[in-house]
């Protein structure tokens, strides 16, 4: 089943011709309207006219997350503000988020690609989609929502949290499709069990899980415990939001990148050379139809590989493998992106706290937990318990407010955090060890 059969099954040659045409047009737009790109392209000695083949993409400069931060909030927008109909943002390393803007056409494109993704996952009109992705600045909730409406399915805008209510609604409303992070789906199933509700008895048929890395083992676990077909979805707000790539339910082997809108490349993150099909490297994406904030060769920092082999589902779009890690130190905690430097910045803002901390990430009952260990030096020590507890609560609150992630602060003795030469070991991620 397809949502847009013509484009989803476009023969490779026609697809690449379309990509080239759209790439040239996008570069022509940004060299005119975005000073940042005008400068970067001139520096690289490339212009839209000098792009003759898709291989010329490799001559274009990269765009980094830092470039987006430096352009805060609107300096990378390629259209005037009156053409922007939606603004989203993802958390940034120093409290300033990364901002993206969408034109009406961008929202239409996003809705279509998300609708395509739903259909690829096995969802159709008549399905009741229980959308537990967060609504708000985060792109997950609204992205899935618009796609569901575009498809013509019934969408329940649940957003995250309030697990008991989620379960009740899912049971009473007869939800057939669940969209959330993979870990939250398992958490809900466990929570339901305690209420005497077996997820396997619910009407759920398809689960579309993303916003955090997961494994084949976890898929099997989810499919058994929730009795549904689980597919992986990929997206990032800088590029669009959810629906950049999706697994098809026919193969469940790699995620189709919607290549008529995005050109994916895999590069060696150290040398920046483009890697051949099948090799693991960093995913780089160029948006070729976006109007609000088009990005050239955006460094996603996600590690994967790509294949152009034909897929049993009939889609001609390339597939990327499950994300297997990051080429930077970003953590994904319950779907929220967290950089250790963000936590450091918050700690440094608390009077007397020294820059000795460790982040311990674990998965308990299928839910990520973050513990922030902070050394108690003389500056923050008190002979009264209440002062130390107030300090912990203050840090926990600030992290929650600024990063949107719940954590537990643990006060530890000085020097108990290992000092190492060079780069300190700031993060202990125990999630994949179990």
């Amino acid at each position, binding site marked *: 089943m397809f949502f847009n059969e013509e484009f989803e099954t476009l023969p490779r040659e026609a697809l690449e011709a379309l990509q080239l045409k759209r790439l040239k047009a996008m570069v022509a737009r940004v060299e005119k309207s975005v000073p940042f790109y005008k400068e970067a392209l001139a520096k690289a000695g490339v212009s839209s006219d000098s792009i003759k083949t898709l291989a010329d993409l490799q001559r274009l400069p990269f765009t980094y997350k830092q470039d987006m931060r430096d352009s805060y909030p609107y300096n990378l927008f390629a259209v005037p503000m009156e053409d922007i109909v939606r603004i989203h943002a993802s958390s940034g390393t120093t409290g300033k988020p990364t901002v993206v803007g969408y034109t009406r056409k961008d929202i239409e494109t996003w809705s279509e690609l998300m609708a395509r993704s739903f259909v690829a996952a096995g969802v159709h009109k008549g399905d009741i989609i229980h959308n537990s992705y967060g609504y708000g600045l985060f792109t997950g909730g609204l992205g899935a929502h618009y796609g569901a409406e575009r498809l013509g399915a019934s969408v329940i805008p649940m957003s995250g949290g309030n697990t008991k209510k989620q379960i009740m609604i899912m049971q009473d409303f007869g939800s057939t499709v669940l969209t959330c992070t993979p870990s939250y789906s398992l958490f809900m199933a466990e929570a339901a069990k305690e209420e005497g509700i077996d997820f396997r008895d619910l009407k759920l048929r398809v689960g579309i899980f993303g916003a955090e890395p997961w494994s084949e083992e976890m898929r099997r676990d989810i499919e058994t415990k929730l009795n549904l077909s689980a597919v992986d979805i990929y997206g990032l707000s800088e590029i669009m939001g959810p629906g950049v790539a999706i697994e098809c339910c026919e193969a469940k082997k790699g995620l189709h990148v919607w290549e008529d809108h995005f050109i994916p490349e895999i590069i060696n993150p150290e040398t920046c050379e483009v890697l051949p099909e099948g090799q693991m490297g960093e995913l780089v994406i160029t948006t070729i139809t976006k109007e609000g904030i088009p990005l050239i060769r955006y460094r996603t920092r996600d590690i994967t590989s790509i294949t152009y082999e034909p897929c049993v589902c009939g889609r001609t779009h390339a597939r990327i493998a499950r994300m297997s890690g990051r080429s930077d130190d970003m953590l994904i905690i319950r779907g929220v992106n967290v950089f250790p430097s963000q936590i450091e910045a918050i700690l440094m803002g608390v009077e007397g706290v020294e820059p000795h901390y460790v982040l311990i990430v674990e998965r308990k009952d299928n839910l990520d937990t973050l513990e922030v260990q902070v050394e*108690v*030096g*003389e500056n923050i*020590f*008190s*002979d*009264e*318990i209440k002062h*130390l*507890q107030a300090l912990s609560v203050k840090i926990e609150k600030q992290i929650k407010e600024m990063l949107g992630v719940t954590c537990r602060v*643990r*006060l*530890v*003795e*000085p*020097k*108990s955090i290992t000092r190492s030469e060079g780069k300190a070991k700031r993060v202990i991620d125990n999630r994949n060890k179990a």
Partner: protein
Amino acid sequence: MHVEQISIFIENKFGRLAEVTRILGDAGVNIRTLSLADTSDFGILRLIVNDTEKARNVLKERGFTVSKTEVVAVEIPDRPGGLADILQVLDADGINVEYMYAFVERCGENAVMIFRFDETQKAITTLTGKSFNVLPGERLYSM
């Protein structure tokens, strides 16, 4: 009239309390009394010792976070209502007790309580004004 107390931050980990007391013992510091306040993660060990400076230095050398606090030692008649009388006097003057604990030795017929007040000086004035016997540090360290 106040008494010096040292407070030590201790993680709730096996053997930490033993280590602190061993360090003090090896340095020849005698613990006069102590109290331990604890949470699930950490504890605060409060000590009155015969040599505050020495205790503080040896613990700091070993990497512990130590602070010095002024507390007040008060003689309390060892009879029912003895402690209540004192607390009532403090309460009447709006003085808060942050925490308190007992001294192990008696002072003649009386028990001795150690108080940590939010306003130390005011508490001492109130107590002496009501004829309670506030013990000086030197007396305590050598008891």
